[in-house]
């Protein structure tokens, strides 16, 4: 999530607020563009606070909370939801113009994926209340809201709370639940979730291999494969749409084609299959020597797998890949999937005419990126 720094005036506690007018950028001068509102559901009172930049006029005798932004590295816009903490600065919790907004239910996880981008941590507080508060502030025209973690199903009551908040405040938004689906092997849970979500939730479930040993090795838990398989069948039974995902890495790329066929024969009901490039942060960065494989080195396997799923009538997408690492036949399947605040380009990309179609890189790709990056002229 994006953060910014500043000085808190007139408040000594954390505030969640929504920008209700104008845009705040380092050089904006119109005073009315600096208003944000914060909402405290407990007291049901709405208070207005101000977000000021260095060139804003000074407000004398103002007793509302005021946050004076420092530095140049921030843009906040109308509709964004932000968190202000007196000592730690600000965080953008929801970015209106982004296509990948998500809330957390827990930081805990029951797996230890070798490529986990956000390594699990213990929770200090119940994140569900916090997330529900964010949801209550989001404009209801949002298309997709992610629920992520950790593993959201571990905080089951919290997950239900967040899903109902989304149904209540964002009735037209579809909820994208990132889950390893292991706990959904419990049919009652899957059903409860489906009933609450009323057809507005789809699950993105990673399955890294076509055999248990391969998948279990990657997620670090014996037996996880079969729990996920059961979870997937339960999701199908209760009518929740599924996007099945894999991350391509050293240990599984050679079986990618087998994986594709296995997915089709075993889970023909999945709505979407996503083949993802490695994001070299978190545990993936720590384990980089064990997991890294240059996309150019698995281009053949990727091409065969995508073609195999495509000819079987499955919806298939390639995420997190740079266009120049993909055979041309795969370009129609490549999506610009890296979140805006994460994606960057390198000097190899200079003048590349495919840049607007290309997903670019994760910020973290400094150290590990394909050897075959080269600009299209």
């Amino acid at each position, binding site marked *: 999530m994006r953060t910014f720094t500043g000085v808190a005036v007139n408040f000594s506690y954390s505030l969640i607020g929504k920008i209700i007018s104008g845009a705040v950028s380092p050089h904006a001068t119109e005073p009315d563009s600096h208003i944000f509102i914060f909402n405290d559901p407990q007291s049901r009172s709405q208070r207005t606070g101000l977000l000021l930049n260095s060139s804003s006029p000074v407000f004398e005798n103002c007793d509302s909370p005021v946050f004076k932004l420092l530095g140049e590295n921030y843009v906040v816009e109308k509709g964004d939801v932000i968190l202000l903490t007196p000592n730690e600065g600000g965080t953008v919790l929801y970015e209106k113009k982004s296509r990948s907004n998500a809330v957390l239910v827990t930081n805990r996880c029951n797996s230890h994926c070798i490529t986990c981008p956000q390594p699990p941590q213990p929770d200090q507080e119940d994140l569900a209340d916090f997330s529900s508060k964010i949801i209550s502030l989001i404009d209801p025209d949002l298309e997709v809201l992610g629920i992520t973690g950790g593993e959201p199903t571990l905080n089951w009551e919290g997950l239900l709370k967040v899903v109902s908040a989304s149904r209540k405040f964002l009735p037209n938004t579809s909820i994208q639940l990132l889950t390893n689906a292991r706990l959904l092997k419990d049919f009652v849970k899957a059903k409860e979730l489906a009933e609450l979500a009323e057809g507005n939730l789809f699950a993105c479930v990673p399955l890294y291999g076509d055999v*248990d040993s391969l998948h279990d090795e990657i997620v670090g838990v014996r037996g996880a494969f*079969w729990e996920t398989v059961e979870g997937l069948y339960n999701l199908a039974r209760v009518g929740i749409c599924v996007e099945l995902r894999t991350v391509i890495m050293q240990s599984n790329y050679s079986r990618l084609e087998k994986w594709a066929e296995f997915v089709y*024969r075993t889970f023909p009901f999945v709505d979407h299959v996503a083949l993802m490039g490695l994001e070299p942060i978190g545990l993936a960065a720590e384990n980089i020597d064990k997991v890294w494989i240059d996309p150019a080195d698995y281009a053949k396997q990727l091409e065969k797998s995508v073609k195999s799923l495509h*000819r079987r009538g499955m919806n298939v997408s390639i995420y997190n890949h740079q266009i120049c690492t993909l055979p041309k036949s795969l370009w129609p399947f*490549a999506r610009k999937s890296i979140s805006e605040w994460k994606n960057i380009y390198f000097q190899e990309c200079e003048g590349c005419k495919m840049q607007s179609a290309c997903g670019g890189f994760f910020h973290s790709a400094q150290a590990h990126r394909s050897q075959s990056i080269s600009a299209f002229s």
Partner: protein
Amino acid sequence: MSQSYRFLPFRFERVADRVLLVNDVGDFHFLPESSFDALIGRKISPESSEYLDLKSKNMIWDSHLSNVIDLLATKYRTKKQFLYDFTSLHMFVLTRRCNQRCAYCHASSVCVEDKDVLDMDVATARKCVELVFMSPAKSIKIEFQGGEPLLNFNVLKSVVEYSLELNEKYKKNLEFVVCTNLIALDEDKLEYIKSNKIYISTSLDGPEYIHDEFRKNRSGEGSYKNVTANLALAQSSLGHDNISALMTVTDLSIDHLDEVIDEYIARGLGSIFLRMLNPLGYASAEWNRLGYSVDDFVDAYAKALDKIIQINRSGVYFPEMFTTLLLSRILTPFSTGFVDLQSPAGVGIGGVIYDTNGDVYVSDEARMLAHSKGDKSFCVGNAHSHSWREIFGSERLREIISSSCIEALPGCAWCVFQSYCGADPVRNYAVYGDMVGKRPENDFCRKHKAIFRVIFEYLAKDDEDIEDIFWSWIIGKPLAENSANATQM
């Protein structure tokens, strides 16, 4: 060192110089002979990719057996889904009269103008429609047959109208098909067919000299000119997608299937179904003149399939429908009900045929048995005198069905193609006098075995172009159109 994996049930046979393994849910895998020996000798190393392949395809297991079994059970249920659907194909013999006199007519149609005896009347038709809607199937297909069903068009209309009326209440996915030689088609009938979205299935045996050799009108003239003219008329009115044609391979066309295929494409027919002549009806009496051996048929089929694949390679989308059916069985996890080839057999529980007098037979062959030999063994009731429950819940039908599970039939039980094949208890009865029959020497089995081999030889090639073509047939549209998911950049 002996490895600790165990086997899951699979059947095997040498195909395409390798060993083909197939399990109960239709997963298949080719192994070189030496690897197969290693597999059986428990010598495949758990680290090898072959081991993982076999595990992934549920041929062996090494842990979590109950999960593996649950998975297989789910896949098995999916494969046998047609059983949950129950009887969805309902064929109406509207008349036994015909305006053609085809040399090999299975239905042994007659030309006598004795409508009272040979046509279905409205009262009977309504009784049959009522039975149709008792079926629990969500999708109902009503197929008009004969004789030539257009000769009793008023009753066809009354079936359509009464069905639509009842469907207001039952809300089934209702489809109509008329199987007609098109000779009696006129503007009015075409208009009616169009406005009620009735699908046309017609017969065209090939170019004029082939078609006219066996398909003649009552005065002995070939019907080709008439049929093709009306086909064009119907195509322009209904659209090409709403008409298909069937062909019967004859002793004359068997060496000229390439011409037949060209004729189909030239006539704008989007697919072909290469059908072997069965020794039934008139064809049985004239088998010496018309018939050919299974081997001859399969040779001709293989050559024709090769040509059809070449045509598809060149960019023309043109599937062979029987191959497509078998490919769906082999390559997809889904259930593909096809009343003539499934296990348990589709007789009665997949499709059923109502004769002109309301007699209910489990298949067309069952009806022919009654008409040609006076043997009503496979008549399970009459629409006037029996209830749905009495017919479809009858002891007799149960007995027929339980004799047609190939999983338990000698020969089939250990056949590598079992997961994709089916049984025909009526044919067995007609040939052997019992519903079990004898395999592998009967023609039904020999034909299917040989066709499965032809198809698996193609699959063993691992040729991406062929896979693209086969899958486009299964999906039902050219690969280029299958691009909802591939966005243009």
